[in-house]
């Protein structure tokens, strides 16, 4: 029995999909990345409407944020997987070509959990008209791109006013996100927390300074934190539509439980019970290599791989590092184009919190990190690469915190 197509694909799109298959296969065979980008790019060039054709006749959810997109998408894909096969761009290719590739193969009516870049969200969502959009957080990232945080919130807000049948699952603790979500036809408000407030001090609506206290934030213009229907109640518990439920997943830290809460709230819109959603999320121990322990170097060192690519991510990572007894930490720091060329943001990270553990530094901008640590009075050593750093560690298991390209390269080297 063949899967019935909800709608016949146009000849042009069928051609585009065939080209996608060829290009992705060739790219994988040549070992050039996972082939997620190139195939989708070619398909969209041949048939610009292909994304709408393969995406709009299925139940989909799009996940967007500065931090936590990949993890939340993975958790959501697991939750939706309780209903049947799910499409997802789990590899993190989150612009239109990556989404295209994720949706390029039949069946064309199965649900999809899609990670979408913040700037690309309007274009992708207009094409595929998702059932649910998850908006997690907005913070400074890649300073050299001058992607002003308010501008991202504004384009999300415009998008919400257009998509009249889409539900938004939004984090009330981020004022930019809450403001962006207010135009949508229906909101599921989740308190997912915000441990980095420096990019949300000014009201996105009127540019006055926001007021804050323990229970929320508000502005004189009337903008205020919406009342959440789901919130993280502690490590291992959620407030869920008026009841307190146990919630444990295997990914570490409060930030990942918040990601799980967002994903479960989205899955509910697809008819998945929260207990089933959380059960399905358990067993995810790593996401694209994050949180995974791998051998590093040749002398028996094990490394837990952690990603922190902006100040908000680093603050989350500090919290996570401090959940366990202090291990040596290797900081692998680059400033390539995909990282943002300007490394100044490390001065916004409270590295003083690393004192008391062995710190080892490497990466393309190790000298900048070393100066930052010197001024934080954190003793550290500097090494040519992460393997050399691990070899110099005085324990067998180390944490490695890397930013985007450093993490990517490390993953290739350690899991090949």
């Amino acid at each position, binding site marked *: 029995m063949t899967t019935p197509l909800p709608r016949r694909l146009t000849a042009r799109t069928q051609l585009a999909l065939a080209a996608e298959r060829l290009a992705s296969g060739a790219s994988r065979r040549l070992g050039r990345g996972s082939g997620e980008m190139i195939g989708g790019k070619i398909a969209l060039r041949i048939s610009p409407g292909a994304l709408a054709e393969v995406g709009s006749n299925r139940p989909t959810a799009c996940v967007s944020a500065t931090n936590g997109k990949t993890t939340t998408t993975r958790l959501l894909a697991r939750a939706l997987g309780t209903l049947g096969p799910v499409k997802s761009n789990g590899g993190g290719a989150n612009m239109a070509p990556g989404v295209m590739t994720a949706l390029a193969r039949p069946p064309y009516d199965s649900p999809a959990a899609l990670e979408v870049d913040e700037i690309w969200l309007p274009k992708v969502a207009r094409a595929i008209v998702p059932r649910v959009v998850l908006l997690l957080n907005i913070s400074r990232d890649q*300073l050299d791109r001058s992607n*002003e945080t308010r501008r991202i919130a504004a384009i999300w807000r415009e998008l919400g006013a257009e998509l009249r049948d889409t539900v938004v699952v939004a984090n009330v603790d981020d004022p930019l996100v809450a403001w962006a979500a207010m135009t949508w036809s229906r909101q599921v408000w989740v308190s997912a927390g915000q441990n980095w407030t420096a990019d949300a*001090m000014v009201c996105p609506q009127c540019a006055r300074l926001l007021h804050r206290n323990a229970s929320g934030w508000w502005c004189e213009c009337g903008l205020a934190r919406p009342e959440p229907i789901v919130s993280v109640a502690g490590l291992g518990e959620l407030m869920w539509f008026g009841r307190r439920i146990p919630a444990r997943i295997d990914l570490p830290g409060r930030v990942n439980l918040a990601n799980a809460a967002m994903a479960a709230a989205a899955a509910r819109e697809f008819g998945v019970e929260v207990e089933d959603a959380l059960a399905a999320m358990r067993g995810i121990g790593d996401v694209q290599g994050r949180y995974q322990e791998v051998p590093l170097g040749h002398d028996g060192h094990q490394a837990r791989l952690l990603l922190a690519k902006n100040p908000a991510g680093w603050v989350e990572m500090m919290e996570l590092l401090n959940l366990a007894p202090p291990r040596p930490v290797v900081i692998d720091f680059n400033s390539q184009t995909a990282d943002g060329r300007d490394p100044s943001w490390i*001065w916004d990270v409270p590295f003083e919190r690393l004192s008391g553990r062995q710190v080892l530094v490497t990466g393309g901008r190790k000298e900048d990190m070393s100066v930052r640590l010197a001024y934080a009075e954190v003793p550290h050593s500097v090494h040519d690469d992460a393997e050399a750093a691990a070899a110099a560690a005085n324990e067998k298991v180390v944490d490695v915190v890397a930013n985007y390209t450093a993490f990517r390269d490390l993953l290739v080297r350690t899991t090949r």
Partner: protein
Amino acid sequence: MIRPSATRIALIYPELLGTYGDGGNAIVLAQRLRWRGLRAEIVEVPAGEVVPADCDIYLLGGGEDEPQVLAADGMRRNRSLLRAVSGGAAVLAVCAGYQVIGATFPAGNGQIHDGVNLIDVETRRSFEPPDAPPPPRAVGDIVVEPSPQLGLPTLYGYENHGGRTRPLPGFRGIPLGTVRVGVGDGTPARTDGVVDGKVIGTYLHGPVLAQNPALADLLLTWVHGPLAPLDGPREVGILRDARAHALAEG
């Protein structure tokens, strides 16, 4: 023994003018005093509060368009920064902060907004004729040879701004330096920044004092008098060598 009072370093409106890591300048100044056995106090001035007039060094950093307007309006409401400067305080203003302490700067909506008027410079999106397209945003590494009378070594940093800044008639200061790599003020003279009395404006992020400790020490001597030499931290020398190497090849 008389204990000298702590040098007070004011970080003005970090939530508005702290988007590009420039808060690190406060850390650098305070540590360079402490490592010399001197006391330092960082005074964070939250937006909405009056800028105290009794600090020794005032720091302003980079920020986005709307926060920049908010910062300018906040500082114009009370004149304490101008009072402090006429009383001998020093100022380091970076990027949006540099624009704000001038006479005028462009707001996000394209309108010209009043600055604090601490230095006689003006900022625009462009100084080209109105029919010419505005220059592209200046983003990237920047290297500046300081004006010789400052006695400083090469300045390294990172710039990220859409504005162009030039002195007004009657400006009495000097350029911070001449741009070797990058854009800086974006004027035909290829300068970056100004030094006017004890006020420094510049487009250099990095943070600028982290990469250029001699500039930090210049500010400190302005308010503190001569300081014992500080050898290090040695990591800074390594960083400066790495930047010189990378930018010479780049």
